């Protein structure tokens, strides 16, 4: 568990990396009503689409230099020599990023959806959706960033964004499910199922990819 503590320490001191995406999310949520004529009903129409896309974008920003710094300063090499498991490190890294970025964003998305819809039950249902989806997005973008390590994060986002599209579709569907009050739990379980697959495979794939990069 020492590795978790150390990763925590590193991320905590890198304020820009975790606070930046949260603030960008915040600004995007503020920017949305400004683009719509100020009527509560009109706001609700596109609100959730903007919410999911804002989560997606802020997760993309959060992962921007998740491996870059460790790659540039040689930390990754040290870890590889120590033969401690690479994929554990990756999953710990993702976990810490999620705690620092994903959870605040989920709380914010709860607050914003409550503010927009004034429907507490609905907003409470949004919270688990955004918590799970932010973790999934984080994993996907981590993979993209590992692939395009030291080639700029845009390329990584470009190649992994298609992977996130199915999740966006599920999120869109689940909003309809909530509004028609059908089968909400089914969507949560579907997302959890995706997450459980991704949580296992992404660290493995990423560790192979990083080893290829170090070569």
């Amino acid at each position, binding site marked *: 568990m020492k590795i978790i503590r150390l990763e925590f320490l590193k991320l905590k001191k890198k304020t820009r990396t975790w606070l930046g995406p949260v603030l960008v999310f915040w600004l995007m949520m503020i920017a949305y009503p400004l683009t719509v004529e100020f009527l509560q009903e009109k706001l609700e129409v596109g609100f959730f689409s903007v919410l999911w896309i804002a989560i997606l974008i802020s997760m993309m920003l959060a992962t921007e230099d998740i491996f870059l710094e460790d790659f540039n300063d040689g930390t990754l090499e040290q870890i590889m020599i120590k033969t401690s498991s690479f994929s554990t490190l990756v999953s710990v890294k993702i976990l810490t990023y999620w705690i620092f970025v994903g959870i605040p964003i989920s709380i914010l998305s709860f607050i914003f959806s409550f503010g927009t819809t004034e429907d507490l039950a609905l907003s409470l249902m949004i919270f688990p959706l955004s918590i799970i989806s932010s973790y999934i997005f984080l994993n996907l973008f981590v993979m993209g960033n590992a*692939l395009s390590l030291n080639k700029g994060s845009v390329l990584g986002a470009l*190649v992994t964004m298609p992977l996130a599209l199915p999740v966006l579709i599920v999120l869109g569907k689940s909003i309809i499910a909530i509004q028609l009050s059908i089968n909400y739990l089914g969507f949560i379980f579907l997302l959890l199922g995706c997450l459980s697959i991704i949580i296992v495979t992404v660290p493995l*794939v990423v560790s192979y990819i990083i080893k290829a*990069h170090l*070569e």
Partner: protein
Amino acid sequence: MIKKFIHQFASPKTYLFQVNKFYNYIFFISVFIYISSITWGLLFTPEDFVQGNSFRIIYLHVPASFISQSLYAAMAVSSIVYLVWRVKLAAYLVIAIAPIGAMTTFIALISGSIWGIPTWGTWWQWDARITSTLILFIMYLGLISFHNSFSNYEKADKLLSWLVIVGAVNIPIIKKSVDWWSTLHQSASITLTNKPSIDPSMLYPLIGSIIGFFGLILCLVLLSSKNQILIREKTKSWIKDYV
């Protein structure tokens, strides 16, 4: 034993000489098949009752969209072969196929759009198939730009193969999810999926055009892999003899 066999058989040298032997035959046969079935399809098949003459675009559109997906599958198979057995030729094939895949996907998209104007009255529909084809196109472009961003070819090959495999897992998922998404959004637009059962006089030229187009694309893949081999193996001694 098997590994040795694969490596010998799939050496760039043997491949190159084999390609040169067969290339001309494949090229002329497929040009012949393609031109004849296209003329047949465009000029000699009877008019479709529902869509009128614009249905003839099918002979240009279907081969392209069919092959654009097969090419991705071919890339995925080559990637696995490369990562498992370290066959260099497979890595060359992956990057050789990518631009051609992008081209066929582009043809499929454009021809589909143009076909949509007279039949649907719009050039774009957020239909499941079109959306997933568009995503496929973006993925092809992403793969190409990804490979180009590396200076160390071997590293690029390895990472590209990983990316292709990840994408290959994802393509059916995207397809399914997009299908699922569009069924709820729009119900009764004309989709390409529900084709009416087709008359033999329309079917034969379609099959012909698919085979002919496949042959032409195969020739392109051969050419572009030849190009890759020449670039990558130019320091080898046998290349001098070959040239």
